[in-house]
Each structure stands twice: as C-alpha cells, then as structure tokens.
C-alpha cells in the first residue's frame, strides 16, 4: 500500500503530467469509470487556472481572441505550476512568459498589454499610503525647496513600451476597435498607480519620465530642476519642473516629501 506521501505525489502527477498511475489507487463508482471521475480533477485544474488568467488579463484576452488566448493560457499553465497559496499571484509571470515565447516575439505589443494589466492589478491591492497634498507642499519654506526629496506612492510603478500597447489597451477597455499595433519611433514611458481605489496609468513625456525616475531615486528638487534644464533647455525649466510636480500631486502619485 502506498504511503500518504506517495499517494499524494501520484495524485498530483496525475493532474499535472497526465500520469495514469493514480488510476490503480482509485475505484470506479457504481455509475462511472475511474478515469472519467479522476478527469474531473484534471479538467478542474486547467479550467480554474484559465479562468483566473482570463480575469487577470481581460484585455489581453479580448486582443488575442478566444482561441489564441486559450493556447497561450494552456502553454502558461503547463510551464508554471502555481506556487502560491492565493490564486491572485498565479498569473504574475505571464508578461515575462509572453516576452520569452517565440510565438509572440514578433508581436511585442502582446507582452506590453500583459505588462500593463499586471501593473494595474498590482497597483489595485498595493499598500495604502496617504497621498502628498498640495497644502503640505505649500507649507514648505522657500529656502527648503532646493533640498526637497519626494516619496513615490507605494502603488506607483513605471513601464516603458516600444509599441502603442497603452492605446490598444484603452480602446479594448472602452470596447472600441483597437488601433493597429505599431512600433513607436521613441520608447513610451508610462506611469501606473492607484488613485483612491482605482488603478490608473498615464503616458509621460520623455522629460517628465526622466524627472519622475530621478525623483523616485531621491534626487533633490534643486537638482531635478537642473536636470530638466539640461534635458530640454533652461528656458522656464523650473516652471516645467514645478508643473510636473503639481501634476503628480494632483493625481496622487506621491506619498510624501522630505528635506534631508
């Protein structure tokens, strides 16, 4: 008689690898063959994980269509047995899986749509933090401004797209026909975060993206202004930097500011 450990190992291989050795350990019912009955577990495994991925990657599903999405999902499930207690995390490797998969290599927008959906899902239940308010900034003494550093909101993340994946996602989300996939002449910076309870994203200009990335590293506001001046000219550089900062505060992408 198999030990419990051996039995569970055999059962699991029956589900994951289609190994029929488990059928020697289970019985037919009065109404049905054991292979059909064990098949309930096999089918449920794939169906449940496919449903999870369909929920997590709704617009990717819409973009690929049912058949192509089902093929992708099956390949992903076969390659990535779930290793977390919560199904919430099962699909977290999908963007990297798509990016590495030769089938999708010529269609870069597919991986980027997946990356955007994952980032939006991650923002949805990322840690809470009170956003930085304009009143708090207004209270900073003028002489302290050059040394001010900013704390990104814990829900914020930055993506860089080589295609118009963000536009495709937006069209699909609003249930309109998506634009044709395009390779962009310049990389497109995108900021993802949660405002209130809603996950959001916004494309950033190259200059704003540069300033955000440096600010997120803890670079002081005075230095950020110099970087902006270097990036696109000294003319009104401080005004441009202040305008980006105000936008971040208005959209609640920052969680605080400090003077060192």
């Amino acid at each position, binding site marked *: *008689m*198999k*030990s*419990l*450990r051996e*039995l*569970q*190992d055999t*059962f*699991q291989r029956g*589900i*994951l690898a289609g190994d029929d050795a488990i059928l*020697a*350990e*289970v*019985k037919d*019912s*009065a*109404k*049905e063959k*054991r292979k*059909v*009955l*064990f098949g*309930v*577990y096999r089918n*449920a*495994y794939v169906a*449940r*994980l496919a449903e*999870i991925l369909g929920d997590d990657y709704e617009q990717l599903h819409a973009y690929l269509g049912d058949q192509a999405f089902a093929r992708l999902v099956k390949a992903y499930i076969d390659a990535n*047995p*779930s*290793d*977390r*207690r*919560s*199904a*919430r995390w*099962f699909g977290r490797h999908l963007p990297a899986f798509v990016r590495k998969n030769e089938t999708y290599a010529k269609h870069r927008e597919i991986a980027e749509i997946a990356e955007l959906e994952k980032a939006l899902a991650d923002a*949805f*239940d*990322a*840690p*809470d*933090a009170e956003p930085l308010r304009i009143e708090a900034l207004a209270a900073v003494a003028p002489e302290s401004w050059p040394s001010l550093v900013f704390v990104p909101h*814990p*829900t914020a993340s930055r993506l860089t797209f080589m295609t118009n994946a963000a536009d495709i996602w937006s069209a699909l989300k609003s249930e309109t026909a998506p634009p044709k996939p395009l390779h962009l002449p310049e990389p497109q910076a995108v900021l993802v975060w*949660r405002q209130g*309870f809603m996950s959001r994203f916004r494309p950033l200009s190259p200059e704003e993206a540069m300033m955000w990335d440096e600010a997120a590293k803890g670079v002081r506001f005075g230095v950020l202004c110099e970087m902006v001046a270097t990036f696109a000219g000294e003319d009104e550089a401080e005004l441009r930097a202040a305008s980006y900062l105000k936008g971040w505060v208005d959209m609640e992408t920052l969680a605080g500011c400090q003077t060192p």
Partner: protein
Amino acid sequence: MSSDKPPYLGFGLGLRPQHYQEILDASPAIDWFEIISENYMIEGGQPLHMLDRICERYPVVMHGVSLSIASTAPLDLDYLGALKTLADRVKPKWISDHLCWTGVHGVNLHDLLPIPYTEEALDHVVARVGQVQDFLGRRLTLENVSSYITFGQSEMTEWEFVSEVAKRADCWLLFDVNNVYVSAFNHGFSTDEFLHGVPRDRVVQFHVAGHSHEESHIIDTHDHPVCDEVWDFYRDTVGHFGPVSTMIERDDNIPPLAELVDELDHARAIARAVLGEKRLEAAE
C-alpha cells in the same frame, strides 16, 4: 487556547466584491458574512477597506481554501502567519478551512483534493490540526469537501474519518450540506448515514450551495442556485442538528445580492418551519 464554542450567528452570506457597495449602502438583512481568507491576504486597496467597513457592521467569519491540512508537504508558516495577521484585523467568530489537501512539492493545485480514509491519514491530519490550532491560539473549523473518487486503500467511511478528526484534534466542523449530497451521489452512500454519523456537538456552521449534475456524477461548482434535493437535505440537517449558523455559498456566476438574500430567506423559512420560531430565536 480559546475553546468556547462559537456563537450561533443566524443566516449569512459569502462576502463577494460585487456586493460591497450595496451592503454598505443598504445594510441588507443578512446576519453575518463569511470571507475567503486568501482574498484579503493583500497589502492594501479597496478589498481591505471594504472589509474593515463591513466588519464594523456585521459579524464575520474567515474561510480559507489553501491551508492544505491533509498535505504531506510541511505546514506553510508564512501562510499561517498571514492568516493570523488577517484574523487580528477581522476578529472572526471562527476560522475554517477544508478537510483536504491542495498540493505537494511546493505546488498549489487550487483544488480541494480528497484524502484516503486511513489510520495513517487520520494520524497525520490530527497532528497537523493540533499544530495549526497551537499557532493560531484557537480551535479550527474543518469542512467536509465534495469528492469524485474514492481510494482503494480507505479503511473507514468519510463520516467516520471526519468524526475522528474532530474528536481527536478537538476541532469544530463546518457541515457542507451540498458537499454531503454531492459525495453521497458520487459514491453511492446515503446522506442520512453521513448526517447521523458526525458528532452533533462539533458542528458550528452549515454551507448550502448549488452544483452541476453530469448524470453519472455531480460536480461541486457553487455556480447555481440551491436545488430542491439539497433544500430537502438541508431540512433534514436542520432537524437533526438544531439551530446552526447557516450560509449560502456562491462562488461563480454571482447573481445580484437580492437573489442570494432570497435564497437565504428560503433557508431561514425552512429552519423556522422545522425548529419553530421560538427555538430559532432562543439560539440567537
């Protein structure tokens, strides 16, 4: 370890995100809610915010799906830690999971997998329940699962196994009416045998749910309204156990809240008819 028997809560529903706002806006006549523990093992955002608001207004119990109490893989202490952290936040009336396993070798199959009913499995499960109860500092409540196969090596019936776990591990039981019905159909035993085979004083909660009938077997899908046969068995169950906290469990094809409240009212009406108004009120 707290060993007081959990209180009778009346008639509750599973908390589902589709219903958060309506629950908070309309305060519907639902006595309590059950949450899926894993759905709130997250860091922030709307789910935890809504959960906190609902905990302010309703009694809440926690129901997990991946404790994997019968697995031969080591207990997942990170998971247990997260469960305890959530319990500190929710202050649930009890914490339940399933009498099953969900995977080995670091894999989670996200399913409630069956156990062979052997002395070896019994010893294993009883020891693990003890470890979990020590960790949580409270008794665990375990639910019978639906199953589709039986093992050649089983030495006892499911109800004998369930009863022995409850007695020897000193834990509570969640009697899933639908799961007993499904397994009885699939394995050809009588629902009454199961009903009369488990210790009455251990049962602290009922689940009532729908399923999918595949002619030769029934699959426990929780995506349909409760069918007449399960309501009939619920009637027998209430008659046998008396007032026990009852919940309608819907996990898929989630209907409008009003439909679930109607089903819950149906359960309440059955319990009233079987037990009488006074006995039900006295339990509250």
